[in-house]
């Protein structure tokens, strides 16, 4: 890993902040009043892909109920990202492709031939009001994500109400996010600080259709304004190596629906559908199917399949013939190209019930998923975690 003193200092501060947050999460749990509603969730998440990128994520969340109607939660997450050495020399066509598959800054030939390590710290605090016997509930949260070159923050609020004895529910969520980017030194890169903001509104309705069937559907709108390119990604356009340049506004729209049904033989099945469009002319459809089955008295096995298809953004090209790209925009972002993807998953949940009293409610989870797409990308996702109310 090659880091400057400034970066090491930043990373050091970030590590200390994350450790402090995780310690506070644990201490809150230790110091909570006896008999209160408390739950601890912890998860380890491992992501490895065919480009030899690897991300380890540790998450811990503590939820504390108080004053009957209120609960508060604190969630800390730490990402440790490991990227392999780049294949070619900095600035070569080969590396332009390599950079597009992993947004690492490159400031020298020597550094490009070394592993790159990066950390991301995330902290979310939430407060929820949900009085028993009342149909109205509300919640609010604040989220902050920090990297050596990035600081993202988001404040959100949600109001929900039930009708028909709880058979119908409507939830409205609003969020405002603001991100600041301070790019690290990078060949052909621009180290100017950048920012962007987003406003997100989601409306979700849930309806009980029968004693064994429920459905939900909704709409989500997101408006983003500001810098939306990758400061480390270069594009080969008109014989030149130029920085990626995306439009500074984007309006994203999605409608989604999900139906879930309890089946005979202690099983359930669900299907989720999502349709998405935006003003960069990306259109996408997603189908997500789950099948849950009890094995034995308590153990649950979940099988999953997800299919996603999307079209390319109007300004995305594999090769740009002119430096101006398309309408002045150039992109090397693989997320903005045509893609079809498949995901297969298996998850096992083991609740500890009826064993020892102090273990009651503990649930252990183990999950494996395999993801692959039409652009020869594949990834393995492994997740292990537990939830423990006490």
């Amino acid at each position, binding site marked *: 890993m090659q880091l400057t003193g400034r970066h090491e200092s930043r990373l050091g501060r970030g590590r200390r902040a994350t450790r402090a947050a995780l310690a506070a999460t644990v201490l809150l749990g230790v110091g909570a009043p006896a008999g209160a509603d408390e739950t601890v969730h912890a998860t380890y998440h491992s992501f490895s892909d065919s480009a030899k990128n690897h991300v380890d994520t540790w998450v811990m969340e503590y939820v504390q109920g108080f004053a009957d109607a209120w609960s508060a939660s604190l969630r800390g997450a730490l990402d440790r990202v490991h990227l392999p050495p780049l294949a070619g020399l900095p600035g070569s066509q080969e590396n332009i492709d390599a950079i597009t598959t992993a947004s690492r800054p490159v400031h020298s030939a020597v550094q490009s031939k070394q592993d790159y390590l990066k950390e991301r710290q995330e902290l979310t605090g939430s407060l929820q009001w949900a009085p028993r016997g009342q149909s109205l509930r509300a919640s609010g949260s604040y989220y902050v994500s920090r990297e050596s070159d990035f600081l993202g923050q988001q404040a959100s609020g949600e109001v929900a109400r039930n009708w028909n004895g709880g*058979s*119908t529910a409507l939830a409205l969520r609003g969020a405002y996010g603001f991100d600041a980017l301070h790019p690290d030194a990078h060949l052909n890169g621009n180290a100017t600080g950048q920012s962007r903001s987003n406003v997100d509104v989601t409306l979700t309705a849930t309806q009980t259709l029968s004693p064994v069937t429920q459905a939900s559907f909704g709409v989500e709108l997101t408006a*983003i304004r500001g810098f939306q390119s990758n400061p480390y990604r270069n594009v080969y356009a008109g014989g030149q190596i130029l920085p990626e340049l995306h439009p500074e506004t984007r309006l994203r729209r999605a409608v989604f629906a999900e139906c879930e049904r309890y089946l005979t033989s202690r099983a359930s099945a669900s299907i989720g559908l999502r349709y998405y469009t935006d003003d960069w002319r990306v259109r996408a459809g997603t189908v997500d199917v789950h099948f849950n089955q009890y094995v034995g008295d308590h153990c649950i096995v979940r099988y999953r399949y997800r299919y996603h298809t999307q079209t390319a953004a109007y300004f995305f090209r594999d090769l740009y013939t002119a430096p101006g790209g398309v309408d002045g925009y150039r992109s090397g972002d693989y997320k903005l190209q045509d893609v079809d993807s498949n995901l297969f998953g298996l998850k096992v949940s083991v609740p500890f019930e009826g064993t020892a009293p102090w273990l009651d409610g503990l649930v252990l989870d183990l999950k494996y998923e395999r993801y692959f797409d039409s652009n020869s990308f594949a990834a393995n996702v492994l997740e292990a975690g537990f939830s423990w109310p006490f």
Partner: protein
Amino acid sequence: MRRWIALGLGLAVLALAGCATVAPFQREYLADRIMDPAASARERALERHWLDTREGASGGALGAGGGCACN
């Protein structure tokens, strides 16, 4: 934009129309652990984080994460 708002409101009205009112004592199956979508909310948040780095059609909430090396 107006079409999307109208579609959202239409869906909400359909939901509010209510296909069935299920009494609390009839909710045994709906309350079962394998029927609880909220149980997977944390899992979805983690998944969204890495899916956002491969697919450009996510909702966009919870921070775009533009500076992340996993992006």
